[in-house]
């Protein structure tokens, strides 16, 4: 057969062509042109700035500023960095059950109290934090098909600090139609919560003497101190591993499949969360400081599809994750990028998330049962579903700058994971919905 005589060299030729034009030197001797207008060249820093405001109804609000910078030093040697500053204020659910009578709780610092009105989810309103996070990443090719990257991330909060390092390797195959990626990262966190780390499952000490509890109240101070850990683990180490494949299916469709493995060891308990112990009337007898296992192994699988139509880009992704705390979750997200003009687009998005409760999650503990080894009433590790509706608008400006605005509305609905409410709890809302709104402005230049 005649055809068998010839090899298909087009793939090789395409690769040779790509490498010929990936050489940035081609763009550099650009111009002694008479033209003096601003030639936007790839070698300048590309800066993205964003300001985000996040607000939950009656709960936490956050203001976040982001500056990201990226520079291509040629031949895909890329340095990028990001600085994030955010401040959080407001209240978050403490984990205690609501009651038909007003309740008094001690703040995690032990220095004051807060009161929760009747029929209301107890919220600890001392939630206030600022976080500064910085990361820098370098990536470069090491051969025609191979690329490596490495980076470091530092994060500092009022009561928490973290350092993480990562490395990644990408190989392009099959005429750059396939890319395989593997990445590894290590994070080392140190926690120093205000008021110290509570002794696991110790009862919250509440000063019921009239008047202000303060430094002069010696017996309260001693009792509070007795519920604090002396020494012990205050760090947390995380190892993340990732394997990914990106495949160009055809001219219009690109697909990505990732598997992620994550292992965390150390202090994983939330020092600010409690679990209520209730009697058969549903009356809260006391609040125990929660306790979580000191190890967690997570697996996740992520599948993303991007389809490029003549004008629009459709993105559909699915993530499944599960861990040895028995939390499993599914997330489906879809986005449609729709150009309005040649320089503007709008991108509506919708996301559905569903998770099952951790095996030690419990909305409360009844006083007729032994106290379990691990317990948490934190709704975030309980059974819940979340719906997110969003839209983004972006406009490219003549000078290669662009601005955009993004808005999201978010409804988180905790569900009963099969616990039977007792006594007064039957009449109270144990699984209160959380609604949040996000607005973000972007400017890139």
């Amino acid at each position, binding site marked *: 057969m005649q055809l068998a005589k010839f090899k298909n060299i087009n793939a090789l*030729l395409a690769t040779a062509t790509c490498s010929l034009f990936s050489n940035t030197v081609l*763009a550099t001797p650009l111009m002694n042109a008479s033209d003096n207008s601003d030639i936007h060249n790839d070698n300048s820093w590309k800066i993205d700035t964003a300001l985000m405001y996040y607000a939950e109804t009656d709960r936490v609000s956050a203001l976040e500023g982001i500056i990201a910078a990226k520079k291509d030093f040629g031949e895909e040697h890329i340095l990028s960095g990001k600085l994030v500053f955010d401040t959080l204020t407001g209240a978050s659910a403490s984990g205690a059950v609501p009651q038909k009578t007003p309740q008094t709780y001690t703040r995690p610092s032990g220095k004051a109290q807060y009161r929760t009105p009747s029929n209301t989810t107890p919220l600890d309103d001392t939630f206030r934090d600022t976080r500064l996070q910085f990361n820098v990443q370098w990536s470069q090719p090491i051969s025609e098909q191979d690329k490596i990257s490495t980076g470091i991330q530092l994060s500092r909060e009022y009561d928490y600090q973290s350092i993480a390092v990562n490395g990644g390797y990408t190989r392009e195959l099959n005429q750059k139609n396939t890319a395989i990626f593997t990445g590894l990262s290590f994070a080392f966190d140190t926690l120093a919560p205000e008021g110290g780390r509570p002794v696991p499952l110790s009862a919250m000490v509440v000063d019921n003497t009239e008047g202000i509890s303060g430094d002069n109240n010696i017996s309260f101070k001693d009792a509070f101190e007795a519920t604090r850990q002396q020494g012990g683990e205050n760090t947390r180490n995380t190892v993340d591993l990732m394997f990914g494949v990106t495949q160009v299916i055809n001219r219009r469709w690109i697909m990505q499949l990732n598997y992620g493995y994550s292992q965390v060891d150390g202090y994983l308990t939330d020092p600010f969360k409690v679990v209520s112990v209730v009697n058969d009337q549903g009356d809260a007898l006391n609040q125990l400081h929660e306790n979580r296992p000191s190890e967690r192994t997570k697996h996740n699988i992520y599948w993303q599809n991007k389809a490029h139509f*003549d004008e629009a880009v459709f993105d559909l992704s699915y993530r499944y994750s599960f861990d040895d705390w028995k939390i499993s979750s599914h997330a489906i997200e879809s986005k449609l990028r729709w150009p309005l003009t040649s320089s503007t687009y709008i991108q509506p998005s919708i996301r559905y998330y569903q998770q099952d409760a951790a095996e030690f999650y419990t909305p409360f503990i009844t006083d007729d049962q032994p106290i379990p080894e691990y317990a948490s009433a934190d709704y975030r590790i309980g059974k819940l579903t979340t719906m997110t509706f969003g839209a983004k608008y972006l406009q490219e400006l003549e000078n290669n700058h662009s601005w955009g605005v993004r808005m999201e509305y978010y409804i988180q609905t905790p569900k009963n994971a099969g616990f039977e409410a007792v006594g007064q709890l039957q009449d109270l809302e144990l699984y209160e919905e959380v609604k949040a709104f996000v607005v973000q402005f972007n400017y890139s230049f």
Partner: protein
Amino acid sequence: MHYTFKQLNKGSFYCIQFQAMASLCEVLVETQNAELVYKIGCLAEAEAKRIEAKFSRYTNNNVCYAINNAQGKPLAIDTETASLLHFAAQCYEMSDGMFDVTSGILRRAWTFDGSNRLATQAQISTLLPLVGWQQVTLTDHTLQMPTGMEIDFGGIGKEYAVNCVAQICTQQAPDISILINFGGDIQVTQARKNKQAWQIGIEDPTFKADAKIKANAASKPLKTELAIKQINIQQGGLATSGDARRYLLHNHIRYSHILNPKTGWPITNAPHSITVATAHCIQAGCLATMALLQGEHAEAFLDAQKVKYWSYH
């Protein structure tokens, strides 16, 4: 700068024109922004002329001249030249030595003027030792080849220029469809807004040959439109290789101006012209030339490449 530009097709795009590389060069820009067109015109013409000046073999003060007159000594070359020669080296490998930028020297023996004058084997035999990329030592920064050998960028230069200009156009106007056409070597940077194809005329050698015969018979002047074949292109690169006017006819054998670098003789029984469409103009140009080098098996070669092509016999 000598380019001109005008608005065409009810103002839906601008057409920039200038002369470079012995061709009419056109850049079609789908915009109403005259200022942008002005800028692209400046950059496109400057880039085309820069590449022409740098790689032309008709001048004695450029890198091509320096390479061909290095007298066997290692020569320092710039990154762009090295990249382009690395590309040529890969083409040589892929084509099993048929696509060879050192084969131009054989033209000393051959004059393709439509006549029947063949070169003598003696002439060819003296030139053959000076042909063969395997004799060239290329690194990222240097090139060394035996005295007397010559490198000719003619086979890839124009297509390369088209892609360089396309790259500049994409940088300048990332969201606009721009068609670059240097004498039939074409690149479209991206699809047009309303999915419309760019329509352009390329020389159709068969049509021209037939028309010429008919025109002679009728003793009428030939209408230029007859020589042009209309093609539609939405995105990607297109290039044509052929011998519409450059061949020898001897004993009813048509000797194409494409020379076999291994024998020094012209390829016979190849199509007159081959047009290939691929992602990049330079890629299409190389495939078209490699196909012609296969002579009567040109189409079989192209079928194996799984590309879109048009061949004319």
